[in-house]
């Protein structure tokens, strides 16, 4: 199979125009000392049907969300995608276009991104948003880098209630860029306010929390925000489960300066965790410091002055500002942003609230049922959204083996990142889990005892 349309005859004719007679002659600029003089050692070409069989078999080796009842969350959430979303998002005019450098023939993508920026602001309650970032983790980094500023030095304080993967990425970047990261412990599942207070100083560049945090617990922002703002720090909140914003206070309402996070679960496929959809929303004052693309509304130059959309404030970006750019990002996650935009339009104002309520209620139902089983107890007493930690009578590995036999994928094992949580399991219950699913889980848990 090949997507090269020109036949050998076509190519011969074109070579003749160039005064050449073979494709090999075109390679003369590549000196012999670096030429590869053997075929690449790769599997041979496959015809389309044979390739489909191969990949179909490979895909079938994975258990997917239709095969198993899953209670996994921990940063990646299963929210139902209305059919209308992929039907529109996957229209080839969106899919096969590049970054909209020529706005006159890219109004569709530009307008969709402008709508995305708006909707992100609508759910976060902040003033502006960008056109997307790689994922929630790198969005958090970008917020921290913005807070740190061009010097690249300084210190950020982060709650250990933030997703351990995100913190790992932060440490990786911090080491290279040269700034310090201080982690603040949690107490009863939420950021320890005393420790936070002790960690934040007048020179702290950023204070970063996650809401709800990695344990699903709802942070007490009323106590945190004044501490975050006692110096000149930028207060950054991270949202990995955007459905929470249907019922929980918006970052803009509780004093966050920047909200970052992950919107992949809104209208996109889970795809083993990527491509993801990082977002950043902020107060207007950070407009010219924002990383990544921004779409702005404008009008035609000509007399008609029709409304139109363009990439704007590009002097922030790498292709203009180069080493002094606010970020190195170029390719982002636009198509996923389109998906999230259509998703948010489809569920709408009312559906967004209902979504939050469904997740909250279903998770609390599951929590009540599970904590009623002898041997299973709640790890924390703090309020939570749609995830909660259960201490089980057996190790999560053993528990998972039992669950798997019943067609269930249990929760994440926080013990991997939090050494004192060895027998814990982090259950996630979104609106996609039915009462029947939950009851099945509960009945299996009942059978598993120490």
């Amino acid at each position, binding site marked *: *199979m*090949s*997507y*090269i349309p*020109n036949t050998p005859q076509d190519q011969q004719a*074109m070579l003749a125009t*160039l005064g050449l007679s073979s*494709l090999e002659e*075109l390679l003369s*600029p590549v000196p012999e*000392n670096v*030429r590869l003089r053997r075929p*690449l050692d790769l599997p041979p*070409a496959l015809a389309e049907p044979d390739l489909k069989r191969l990949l179909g078999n*490979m895909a*079938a080796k*994975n*258990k997917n*969300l239709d095969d198993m009842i899953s209670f996994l969350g921990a940063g990646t959430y299963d929210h139902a995608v209305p059919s*209308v979303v992929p039907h*529109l998002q996957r229209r080839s005019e969106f*899919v096969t*276009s590049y970054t909209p450098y*020529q706005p*006159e023939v*890219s109004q*569709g993508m530009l307008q*969709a991104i402008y709508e995305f*920026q*708006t909707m992100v602001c609508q759910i976060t309650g902040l003033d*502006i948003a960008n056109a997307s970032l790689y994922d929630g*983790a790198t969005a958090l980094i970008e917020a921290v880098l913005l807070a740190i500023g061009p010097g690249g030095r300084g210190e950020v304080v982060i709650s250990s209630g933030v997703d351990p993967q995100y913190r790992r*990425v932060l440490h990786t970047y911090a080491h290279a860029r040269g700034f310090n990261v201080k982690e603040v412990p949690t107490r009863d599942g939420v950021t320890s306010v005393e420790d936070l207070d002790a960690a934040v100083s007048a020179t702290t560049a950023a204070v970063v929390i996650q809401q709800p945090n990695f344990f699903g617990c709802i942070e007490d922002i009323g106590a945190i925000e004044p501490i975050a703002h006692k110096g000149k720090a930028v207060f950054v909140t991270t949202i990995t489960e955007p459905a929470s914003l249907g*019922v929980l*206070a918006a970052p803009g309402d509780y004093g966050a300066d920047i909200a970052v996070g*992950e919107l992949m679960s809104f209208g996109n496929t*889970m795809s083993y*965790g990527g491509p*993801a959809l990082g977002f950043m929303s902020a107060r207007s004052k950070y407009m010219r410091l924002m990383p990544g693309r921004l779409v702005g509304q404008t009008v035609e*130059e*000509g007399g008609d002055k029709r409304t139109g959309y363009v990439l704007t404030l590009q002097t922030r970006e*790498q*292709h203009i*500002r180069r080493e002094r750019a606010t970020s*190195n*990002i*170029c*390719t982002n996650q*636009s*198509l*996923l942003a389109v998906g999230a935009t*259509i998703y948010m339009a489809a*569920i*709408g104002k009312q*559906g*967004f609230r209902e979504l939050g309520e469904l997740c*909250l209620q279903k998770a609390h*139902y599951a929590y009540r049922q599970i904590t009623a089983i002898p041997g299973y107890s709640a790890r924390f007493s703090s309020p939570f959204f749609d995830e909660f930690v259960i201490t089980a009578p057996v190790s999560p590995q053993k528990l998972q083996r039992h669950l798997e036999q019943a067609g269930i*994928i249990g929760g994440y094992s926080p013990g991997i990142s939090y050494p004192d949580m060895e027998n814990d399991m982090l259950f996630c219950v979104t609106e996609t889990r039915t*009462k029947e699913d939950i009851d099945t889980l509960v009945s299996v848990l009942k059978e598993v005892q120490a």
Partner: protein
Amino acid sequence: MRSVESLIFEKGAPGRRAATMTAMDVPTEALESMVPTSMLRKEDAPLPEVSEIEIVRHYTHLSQRNFGVDTGFYPLGSCTMKYNPKINEDMAVLPGFARIHPLQPESTAQGAIQLIYELEQYLSEIAGMARVTLQPSAGAHGELTGLMLIKAYHESNGQGHRNIVLIPDNAHGTNPASATLADYRSVEVKSDPQTGGIDMDHLKALLDANAANIAAIMMTNPNTLGLFDSKIAEIATLVHETGGQLYYDGANANAVLGITRPGDMGFDVVHFNLHKTCSTPHGGGGPGAGPIGVKEHLVPFLPGPMPAKNEQGYYWEDPGAQSIGKMRANKGNFGVLVRAYTYLRTYGPDGLLHVSQSAILNANYLKHELESDYEIAYPQMCQHEFVATAERQKEEHDVTALDIAKRLLDFGMYAPTVYFPLIVHEAMMIEPTETETRETLDYFVSVMRQIAEEARTNPEIVKTAPHTTPVGRLDQALAARKPNLRWTAGQETTH
């Protein structure tokens, strides 16, 4: 016909709905009993209130106001806008690939880990590298990852003070921006005005002056002028002699498949843009994937986890103590990787060689055919792309590269990359890719010649272009001067 689509926010009415939520099938409790009142949302997020038909028509119209490879020729230099095969899309949405959770047990994700494992092998072979991490989300992310690896390597050798990254003057903006993020200082290397390659004297001078502090050089080869730097082996030796590393920006890898390998050229690190070379669609800006390949000496520093295999099957291996850590959550843009895997298995070794040969042929053919009407920045044989200029048109008729780009839109084609690379005045960087027919190339040539003729005889039509697009030229200055980055209630679209 000119037209405007109002915003989704201007559509609908209070109470209108599209998708409905699943039934509340569990006993409920009062919200206040679960969430402290202070943490409850005060007002509903003011998302749109629209019906499904309104959504469908709105985004269908928006799609119709957008140009993609499926619409027509997209000669956007440096972006490798080749045809995005439909089978790739179908494979990526198989439930076994699309509906799996990044943290589910390895035993339930064997196919996914296998795909990543094998794709690593294929890319390692293509790059001539020891190992490849598929974690980076795009080219720029790969660049940063690569520079971090280089930094970790230097640090492990007690060379942590090395702080300079050499970057050619024609490099892409992400190169210096990534260097900054890795806390490196970018120093520009001049290119040779004749060969278009690195100015060897300048390079040597820079290496001499900064010998102890050179961390790396970042290069593309062929470079952004579409020219293969034939001195590459010598450059590698020179840089390595000072203790520096060589980073290969793989954005132009579509020119080298099966012809030459970054590893064999002497590079230590390479990134791929799978959304260019491996045909994964660019999605109007993303997603992409920017895997990083490295030579053996850099392997210990790779971010984790990495895919591995034993008798029981495939699994994820946590990185060792020297690892730089992690570049993002989870394992990378898996959906993009499925597409790239499909692509590589479609072509096989001979097919991939033919891809690059054909891309090079198409570029040289266009270059040859445009020579009569446009200046070509570097007249020698090019690789998969080349830079033409509007210098002649600018000088003689005040018609710029931008004007020509806009005029092209009137003929159902996208425009080349303009004003890049920065070192060429009035640059028009043209990359046809291998997936275009001879007839399309000929049509492009005929239009470009017509535009050159218009520049001579009727420059106004070019300078006021485009004429047939949904909107006319937009006021960029206004957008930047009075930024309007989001809709607010009351704001209205002008039609």
